[in-house]
């Protein structure tokens, strides 16, 4: 089992529905996003265009973040998902320094999304969280256990995302990842991400 994701950038419209779905699913404090969309401009007038790169955690096979974590709080599961154990995290932020994708966030403070008082939903979702911990995308592990796909995949209105076992060729995601136009971000860093992008444009 090796969970992975393919994002078809030819379909992605940069609407940020994935980011909002992720926020809603995890109820993270204000300013903390497990997912972001990088937008960029390319070309020149009259052929200028705007592109989008949705960036969840890449759940790399070679994990620089896990390598530097002193307490093994950051760990990679057998199913390929990289997690942070909030009981072990000491908040040294070495993993954030090591991650080439900026996929990790530090809980600098626990601010409610609608002001200082946290809503009951936030209180429920933020159980066990406290300032000083590192958090990150976990491919919606709790949803996977219920047989669902991650919130970003489920929500995407353009159906630009595919999720599943990269090792099982029966999955659509494995077939897409094997395509020649499926690319990984920062391939030169040899992290071998489990998130692939389908695009003809150059990627960093």
């Amino acid at each position: 089992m090796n969970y992975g994701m393919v994002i078809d950038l030819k379909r992605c419209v940069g609407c940020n529905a994935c980011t909002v779905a992720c926020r809603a699913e995890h109820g993270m404090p204000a300013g903390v996003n497990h997912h972001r969309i990088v937008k960029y401009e390319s070309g020149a007038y009259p052929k200028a265009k705007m592109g989008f790169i949705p960036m969840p955690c890449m759940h790399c096979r070679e994990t620089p973040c896990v390598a530097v974590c002193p307490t093994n709080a950051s760990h990679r599961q057998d199913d390929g998902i990289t997690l942070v154990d909030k009981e072990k995290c000491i908040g040294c932020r070495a993993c954030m320094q090591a991650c080439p994708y900026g996929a990790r966030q530090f809980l600098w403070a626990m601010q409610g999304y609608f002001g200082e008082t946290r809503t009951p939903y936030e209180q429920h979702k933020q159980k066990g969280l406290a300032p000083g911990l590192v958090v990150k995308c976990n491919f919606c592990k709790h949803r996977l256990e219920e047989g669902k796909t991650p919130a970003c995949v489920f929500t995407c209105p353009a159906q630009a995302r595919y999720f599943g076992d990269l090792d099982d060729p029966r999955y659509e995601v494995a077939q897409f990842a094997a395509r020649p136009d499926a690319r990984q971000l920062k391939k030169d860093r040899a992290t071998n991400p489990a998130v692939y992008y389908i695009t003809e444009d150059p990627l960093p």
Partner: protein
Amino acid sequence: MIALLIVVIIVCLALAGFAGRAFMHHYKQGLGASADLKDVYSWGLHIQAFFFFGALAGGLLMITGFSMLTGGALAAAAPMAIAAALGCLAGGGILLVADLGRPLRSLFLIKPDGNKRSPIIWDFACFSFCGLMGLLFMFNLVPLRLTGLWAFLTAGGGFAFLMAHTHFLLTREGKLAQNPFLALGMIASSLWSAAGLLAVVFFMTTVHLGSASALLTATGIAALGTAIAAVLPAPGETPTLRAFRRPAPGAALLLVSLICMLAGCANGLIPALVGLAVLVYTFMDKQRQLRDMQAEPLLPEPFGRFERKAEYTPSKNEWLIFAGGAGVAVIAGIIAWYIMKLCY
């Protein structure tokens, strides 16, 4: 002298008190409430100061170890250098713990099931080893026939500590490839700053052992050599005058210490002032290293154009905690020095 010492201790205790208050604020409200750090710039003044104090401790231990192994003139200054190194380790350790998101969990670092691949674990192991070597010396627990072994292990411990620091800075991948002189420069600048601290301590205590200006010059040549090598253009690149602006203040300091040495001014006010300037230069150099490491955008242009910029200015709380850490370093150094006087 005693009056000056009392004033220094009172000031340092006051600084530690203010820092303690600032730390409690950080502990209760979270690091975000007390520091101006962000996800894109997550290591700030505390880590810079930890590297600075660690560099001083590592450099002092290396100088002491080599001097005792070779029977150099500075071997007699070993108690002073070890006291200063222990002070730096105490100050640096406090600042490292203060920078953690969950400071009480720093105890997790001594658990045997830690990640052996992590530079932080190695840093902590070297830190503990250096501290242990210093404590053995302080309490006069090193048998005379094992002094050589102790000196070797101490120098090696200091070296390993600095190597672990270098590895720490390499957590951003590709840094070593960009600057192969990073490790050499780290060691050389540590030795130089340790020489600077010794020059200041010699002047303050009016104990003149060896030549501070000669030590400053020798270590300064090494530090400046690696600093210049680091900014030299790669084959095919055109050299720019701007690149040499970084090592320029260091060159000026080296020149002054060289003149001092040639003029026979081995110890005294001028070498002490040069030493102080070297300490400031090294402290700023640590800031530059951290800034260079974090300022680089994660995605190249044009992809990173709209990403959050890595900007950072230390907050008042951070400065207070840093001042407290420095105060603790001075007090710990003085205490170690007096314990040594009692034990020897």
